């Protein structure tokens, strides 16, 4: 059974009618666990993930080490290539602790990233116009400096 971790940014992509999965997102993903009787977080993995639906380093969720009970899980996602998405820390408190040998997450568990602003047509126009003004100002100031 595949235990893919899915890191997804759901936003307005090419179809302007409905939000779809943004496939190009890359992020640094840190997975930490807190075990029963411990106060500090233990780092399980700290890797870079690419393109929407991604795998962890092993392609699977890690398993809880034998003899431990996981009571809390923390996943910190820091977008790398698209500043348009906020960083996200997802903390999961487990009502029933996971025992040694159990996977730390469910198959296909998703982490949906939230954009700073939705990429609607109107928002893209605003951003485009801002960029156009910046470019024009740069060209004009560079041109004047050269004169």
């Amino acid at each position, binding site marked *: 059974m595949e235990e893919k971790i899915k890191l997804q940014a759901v936003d307005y*992509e*090419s179809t302007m009618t409905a939000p779809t999965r*943004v496939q190009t997102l890359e992020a640094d993903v840190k997975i930490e666990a807190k075990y029963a009787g411990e106060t500090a977080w233990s780092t399980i993995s700290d890797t870079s993930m690419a393109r929407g639906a991604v795998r962890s380093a092993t392609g699977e969720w890690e398993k809880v080490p034998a003899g431990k009970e996981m009571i809390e899980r923390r996943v910190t996602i820091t977008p790398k290539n698209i500043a*348009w998405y906020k960083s996200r820390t997802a903390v999961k408190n487990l009502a029933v602790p996971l025992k040694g040998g159990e996977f730390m997450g469910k198959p296909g568990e998703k982490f949906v990233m939230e954009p700073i602003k939705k990429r609607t047509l109107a928002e*893209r126009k605003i*951003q485009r116009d801002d*960029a156009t003004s910046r470019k024009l100002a740069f060209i004009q100031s560079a041109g004047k400096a050269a*004169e």
Partner: protein
Amino acid sequence: MASSLKRSSILTTFASKRTQLWQYLNTTIDSFLRDVGLRSTKEMTPGATVPACNLYELKNEGYVLGGVNYKKYCFQSWMVLTGANAYVQSLGLINVSQGFMLITDQTSTISADDTAGVGGFTNGPIANSGTLVEDSNTSVATTATLAYVNQDNGITGVDDNYMYLIVANTALGSIDAEAYVKIEFVVEQEAKVELIKL
């Protein structure tokens, strides 16, 4: 009676086959005319704030590089630039769902009024300071200081490629030109590509 039924059946079959043949020939001729560039439905239409443009896939021009399959697209746009000495003309947005948009060819041209100079109009490539534009105060062609196609995927995400034509000569009061932008680019075979006319 039997003979008339048979004849009727033959006629029906003949009519059906004739229709099939007609459809086959029509499709074949249509494909041929498109292949040799004599028929096109690639209409260039403007967006709310961008000039007339279109985007289409160049079938059978893809290739494999480093084990990755690429497919090729053509983007073109036509516009008149007038009334300023620096243009950052938005050409729309090309969204590529996967991987990067890599421009492989740029055959844009620009035309300028030179009626008070050599006479007629210039026609040349868009190539920075090698680009001829009209000094609109004199109707004499002169060179731009900047002229190039700008692809910016740092505005709303790497999948959003905002396209611009930049033409400038800020030492002049105003420059005019007509520009035809034509670029070809490749994307990964699995990528969805869409032109969003903002």
